[in-house]
């Protein structure tokens, strides 16, 4: 059995879902949670029910907002005061930025963007994609401990059948140390929708969308089914959508429950970025488009008539 710390970031005061996926998968290990910031009693209960034994709330000067150095320093100081074998976190924007710096403070290794793992005999062995998912490889850690692991959101899934946990919260004084790169301002995104990497349903438009304006029909469909809208590289390069919406090898890698590709031909680099979606629907006028080789449900037809019909049909189904 290994001693494990799971770092969770907070979003509007709540722990990220990926934290609960990680905790569920770590059942059977001695698992603590660390958070920087304040956690409500309800959130502490959620973490305890998912198996967290000690929940450490770290607060201190210069820790009110994220900075790579401040967070890494505060967590490193805390981890040094304990004896953890492993430190896990979600491979979110923050996790991807923070963990390499934190691990290097221990001269330790980091297995990043892991999609599955085992802890046989308390030893981590994981699976992670390479080449944006065109192939998979086994990943193991060696060298000084603790070892660090980041987990891709939506990959492990949630654990069912929880029982009440006895985990308790503790306050920890944090030391951010010398912070040289600090956030001076945050510019909010135009859309308040959930990020592609964490979305449960995604509707993506390709080159066949023809214009940025036409993405409106995808937005309307997305609103009905609670989806986030994405775009292919061809659509982004044509100026129909910003790069933050791009799905594929040079954009976001996604694994939603449902992926609806509209007018996407299915270039290798696009398929690599969305192949782990659980169910794929493709709409394309070309019956030989490569996207159909990956689709669970393919519709050969014009997206400009099919998408509005889909929206109406989903409305009926969902009683909206």
């Amino acid at each position, binding site marked *: 059995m290994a001693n494990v710390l799971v770092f969770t970031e907070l979003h509007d005061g709540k722990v990220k879902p990926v934290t609960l996926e990680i905790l569920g998968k770590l059942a059977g290990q001695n698992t603590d949670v660390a958070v920087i910031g304040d956690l409500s009693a309800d959130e502490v209960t959620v973490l305890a029910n998912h198996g967290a034994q000690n929940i450490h709330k770290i607060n201190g000067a210069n820790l009110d907002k994220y900075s*790579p150095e401040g967070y*890494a320093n505060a967590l490193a100081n805390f981890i040094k005061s304990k004896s953890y074998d492993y430190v896990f976190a979600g491979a*979110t*924007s*923050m996790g*991807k*930025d*923070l963990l*390499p710096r934190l*691990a*290097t403070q221990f001269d330790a*290794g*980091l297995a*990043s963007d892991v999609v599955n793992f085992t802890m046989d005999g308390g030893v981590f062995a994981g699976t992670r*994609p*390479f*080449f944006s998912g*065109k*192939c*998979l*490889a086994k*990943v*193991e*850690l060696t*060298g000084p401990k603790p070892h660090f692991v980041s987990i891709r959101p939506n990959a492990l899934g949630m654990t069912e059948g929880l029982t009440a946990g006895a985990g308790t919260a503790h306050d920890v004084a944090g030391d951010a140390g010398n912070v*040289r*790169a*600090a*956030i*001076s301002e*945050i*510019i909010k995104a135009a859309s308040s929708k*959930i990020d592609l990497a964490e979305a449960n349903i995604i509707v993506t438009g390709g080159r066949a969308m023809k214009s940025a304006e036409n993405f409106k029909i995808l937005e309307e469909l997305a609103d009905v*089914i609670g989806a986030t809208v994405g775009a292919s590289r061809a659509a982004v390069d044509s100026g129909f959508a*910003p790069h933050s919406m*791009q799905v594929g090898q*040079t954009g976001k890698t996604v694994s939603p*429950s*449902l992926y609806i590709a509209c007018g996407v031909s299915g270039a*290798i*680099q696009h398929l690599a970025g969305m*192949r782990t979606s*659980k*169910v794929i*629907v493709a709409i394309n*006028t070309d*019956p030989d488009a490569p996207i*159909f080789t*990956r*689709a*669970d*449900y*393919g*519709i*050969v*037809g*014009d997206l400009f008539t099919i998408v509005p019909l*889909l929206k109406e049909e*989903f409305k009926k189904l*969902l009683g909206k």
Partner: protein
Amino acid sequence: MNIFVCVKQVPDTETKITPTADGSFIETNSIKWIMNPYDEFAVEQALLIKAANSAANVTVVRVGSVKDTEALRTAMAMGADEAILVEAQDNLDSYSIAKALKGAIEKSGKKPDLILTGKQAIDDDALQVPQILAQMLDLPSVSVIVGFELNGTTVKAKREIEGGALEVYSVEAPAVFACNKGLNTPRYASLPGIMKAKKKPLAQYSLSDVGVSDADRRVKYSEFRLPPEKPAGKKFDATDAAKQAEVVAQVVGLLRTEAKVI
């Protein structure tokens, strides 16, 4: 002002990947190699800084196999002044690569003012090297940047986070910046640029020259394999206008009853 740009050479995005028979890595013989696409934004940013600051020099550094020197020659053809290549196997882990980059930068004898990289390499997709390098050099870093303004020695950098929101950082050089698509539009190498690049200095070192050994490996990769193939799906013809509503209703029905995703 000394600007270092760290680049990686990766298989072209259209490459079909085939694991080796023993699963130790992938077949690399027939691959078309390109500069990692995100590194092009780092090279371009360095050249934009150089254009506004005639005293600036740009050194590109790469750790990897010597199959060809495409990435470094491309960077020099775009306008970088010189290059350093540290010869290493293709599937080195991020810690070893960062340590080799640090060693190469130190060996150049130039004190870095700015270090620019791509936000990730599209082969291992590890997103680790820029931050590890920054920590090893005790420098601040900002990753996934889509905005960069240099005033004197102060950089205002915009970092893209979930959903396209931006964190604006203010940081004093020296510092490390990892660049994302959207930062700038990389130039194409001109023919005279390509000719000139052939005469630009390219220093070559081994891993041991820059202080890296097998003992520096922190992450072991093995059992490279293709992901499981999906069974063929169902395809519906909705090219006939009279059948479209029926097909859509059928698919939506299947999404609920068969796929159970909605």
